């Protein structure tokens, strides 16, 4: 094993749930990667869209067409955000199934932040609706209106750090013992560079979305805008995409350099380099579209940019999955071995049960009362002593009250009522059989 021994003494090896995966692993992995990519595209449209809305609305203070542009993007954000949430459920299910121990452990270690995702995102969503539906009503309170979306953007910028921290932390069980809350997990290597790369990707995807959205024949650009036409809007889209791709390339390189060595192998590296090349290709086409001197030439680049970005996303998703596999496979082997060993131990213990001293034994010396005494100890003794009050009254008192009334005592034990104001009510024992009740009663009534 090549796990560093110093780390080894603090690397936990938990047991996995001893249940089979619901599908073959490769199928689950495929579902995970594909459903995740679909989810993340809408997340990027949501985050990137809200950033652009904010930016354009501020610019709109001087040029009304920007205000219209901001409003038009804002309308797409509220739809994309709904898609982002529902599409997130499938990858969540799959990662829970595939990486149960790793994912849940990371969640618990960053628990408060992890839970905060729910209220934070809910608030951000409500803010985007508030912002969209008060556009006309708040036209005279523009700054206030802008601060609504600014707050939503702020939340949208925080939430991805929590997700990234979790999917990063789950890969490094050797770090778990050193984590004290979310912040300490956030500063692990690789989280922040990946976050910056993600922000770049948000702009890339949103930019190309804007190009497509404004290029649709049925979309009434002429009616909406005074000075903007289709061409200017498309150019803005490419502008954003080019900028985003630039960010992705810069931080992509930082991601590669800061990637902990544990999960790297040649396959991962090859895929990453290939992804990087795709980014450069996308950037080249996007730049050509941006600098084109006619709408026709610009449009010619659309599918090239689109395809290279989609290709990059696929390659990137694949490389992350490979990295995950590579980083965890030895630890997963250990977990599997341990889970199996534990199952064997558990089975052996089940088959040869030993008395741990908490089970009450029947003492044959007590003769006729032996059974009843044992049952009393097991079921009643934690609340009733012979001569003193504990939780309930002493046995001596019961013997007096029920003298000669065996049936009455049996009924009471089965379904007790409340007689004494200063005592807590006794729980019923309907699970005891009639024979058991007879034995207990025999013992109780024998106490003097």
């Amino acid at each position, binding site marked *: 094993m090549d796990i560093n021994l110093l780390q080894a003494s603090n690397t936990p090896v938990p047991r996995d749930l001893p249940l089979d995966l619901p599908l073959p692993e490769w199928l689950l992995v495929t579902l995970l990667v594909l459903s995740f990519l679909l989810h993340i595209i809408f997340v990027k449209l949501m985050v990137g869209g809200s950033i652009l809305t904010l930016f354009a609305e501020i610019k709109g203070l001087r040029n009304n067409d920007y205000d219209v542009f901001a409003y038009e993007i804002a309308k797409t954000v509220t739809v994309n955000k709904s898609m982002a*949430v*529902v599409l997130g459920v499938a990858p969540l299910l799959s990662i*829970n199934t595939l990486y149960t121990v790793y994912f849940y452990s990371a969640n*618990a270690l960053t628990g408060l932040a992890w839970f905060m995702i729910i209220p934070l995102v809910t608030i951000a969503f409500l803010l985007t609706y508030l912002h969209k539906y008060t556009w006309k009503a708040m036209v005279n309170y523009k700054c206030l209106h802008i601060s609504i979306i600014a707050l939503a953007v702020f939340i949208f910028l925080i939430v991805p750090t929590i997700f990234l921290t979790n999917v990063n932390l789950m890969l490094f069980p050797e770090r778990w013992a050193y984590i004290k809350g979310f912040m300490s997990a956030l500063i692990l290597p690789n989280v922040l560079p990946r976050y910056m790369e993600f922000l770049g990707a948000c702009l890339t995807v949103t930019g190309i979305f804007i190009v497509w959205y404004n290029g649709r024949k049925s979309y009434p650009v002429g009616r909406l805008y005074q000075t903007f036409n289709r061409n200017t809007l498309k150019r803005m889209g490419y502008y954003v995409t080019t900028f985003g791709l630039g960010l992705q390339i810069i931080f992509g390189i930082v991601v590669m350099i800061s990637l902990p060595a544990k999960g790297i192998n040649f396959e991962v590296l090859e895929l990453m380099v290939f992804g990087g090349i795709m980014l450069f290709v996308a950037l080249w086409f996007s730049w050509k579209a941006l600098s084109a001197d006619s709408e026709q030439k610009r449009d010619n680049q659309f599918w090239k940019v689109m395809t290279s970005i989609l290709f990059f996303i696929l390659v990137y998703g694949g490389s992350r999955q490979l990295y995950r596999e590579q980083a965890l496979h030895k630890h997963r082997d250990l977990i599997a071995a341990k889970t199996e060993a534990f199952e064997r131990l558990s089975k052996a213990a089940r088959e040869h049960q030993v008395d741990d001293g908490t089970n009450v034994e029947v003492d044959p010396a007590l003769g006729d009362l032996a059974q009843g005494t044992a049952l009393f100890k097991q079921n*009643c003794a934690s609340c009733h002593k012979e001569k003193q009050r504990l939780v309930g009254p002493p046995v001596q008192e019961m013997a007096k009250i029920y003298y000669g009334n065996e049936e009455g005592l049996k009924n009471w034990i089965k379904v007790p009522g409340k007689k004494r104001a200063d005592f807590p009510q006794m729980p019923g024992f309907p699970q005891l059989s009639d024979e058991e009740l007879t034995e207990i009663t025999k013992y109780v009534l024998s106490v003097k």
Partner: protein
Amino acid sequence: MDFPMFHLDWLNDRFLIAAVAIIHVMINHGLAVGFIPYVTWLEFKGVQRAGKDQIVDWHWDELIHNKMKVGFIITTTIGAMTGVGIWFTVALVSPSSIGSLIRVFYWAWFTEWLVFVTEVVLISIYYLTWTSANRSLRSKLKHIRFGAFLSIASWITMVIIVSILSFMMDPGNWNTHKSLFNGFTNPIYIPQLFFRTPVAMLMGGVFGMLLTTLFTKKESILRSQVIKLGGKWVLGWTPFALAGAIYYWNAMPEAMKANMSTAVGSMDFAQYYDVLKYVIIGATVLSILLAGWAIWKPQRLNVGVVIVPCLFIFGFLGIFERVREFVRKPYVIGGYMYSNLLREEDYPLYKKDGILKHATYTSVHEITSENMVEAGQNVFMLTCSRCHTSNGINSVVNVFEKMYGRGKPLDEESMTAYIPNMHQGRTFMPPFPGNKKELEALVAYIKHLQETGESLSGAQTDGIVVNPMQNSEQSTKMYADTLSVSRR
């Protein structure tokens, strides 16, 4: 035990799940399953009421559209997020149980997800195309048909999720054949669906009425007319809701008894069950009163009057959910996993070796007289903390003081005698899993808690301590053979 223990020491971990889940169920039942058919029905009424050369009664249509807007915004924000939130909170508090359920119910949840995606897409289309559909009678009727579609999709999410809920309450099946089919054939399935469907309709109608009173002026004729129709809706569904509730109420103990849920026999269940009876009567009477008022005196109805039954009927569902949760005890997955997240079949091993030895995360693995309290704290975290806190809601000190007298020093001897047997009397409690030494340590810790009022932090703030018997150095040594085999 194998997961770092997230723990909220004042609020109680279960409370977190309950709060998120109840909000979600209320929105799902009240604002999706029940509200959408109600809105679609009113939208259709708007067409029926239109004048000769009109497509729709415009004022009417605008009001219904606005009501739908509220439903749309709430379901796609709080509704959707609390749905995801259930996954998040359960994963934090109860990872072993949800992890196990997902491995078995992956396809059920995957199907649920597909329906859920469809529902969100449909609800967005339904709401966002409302205005553009108003250009012709043809497109308006198409839009209404679409609403009917959406109503069915929402109802199907309920059909699936109720099956998962039912399965979890049916212990026998987990150990025999774990399949979703058992969820549908479960004795509690049909009663639950019969109960939830009309109650959702009722909730949708009452919530809709609340919105009507909010969105219209008091003296307007439109308001009276919409309220009147709403009253008819509520009145129409009330008998079904009542019948469903009685059906469910009657089926619950029978079904649970058949499944040997011990909690059903307990005093606490009897209390809940009894309260439920009055709640059913109360909710029915309130619905009829509200509906009657809405039909006979619609102009006299205002926000203040509607909000009370609205809250009450939403609460009605909440109480049913609470009881449903309770009857599962002492299990979280019937017959398989106790609510302390330990599997029943592992108990003999824990009894033999103690739980600390097998715990991945504990700061004590060997109990001595010096580390009793610290060991007890670890035992508490591993075996009690899913339901109990140190000094907050449902605190362990409080439950003992309730028995032995408030404010009196806890008697260690009595507690040591009580804990190993508590599941006999308190049948909703799982048996104590640890050995004798761990029992003594736990008692020492509880006593210490009573004396100091100390609190207990979870892994989310204090992190974890890896048990030296469960680290990778140990494991590598122990499983070297198996590992080399699996490598090949």
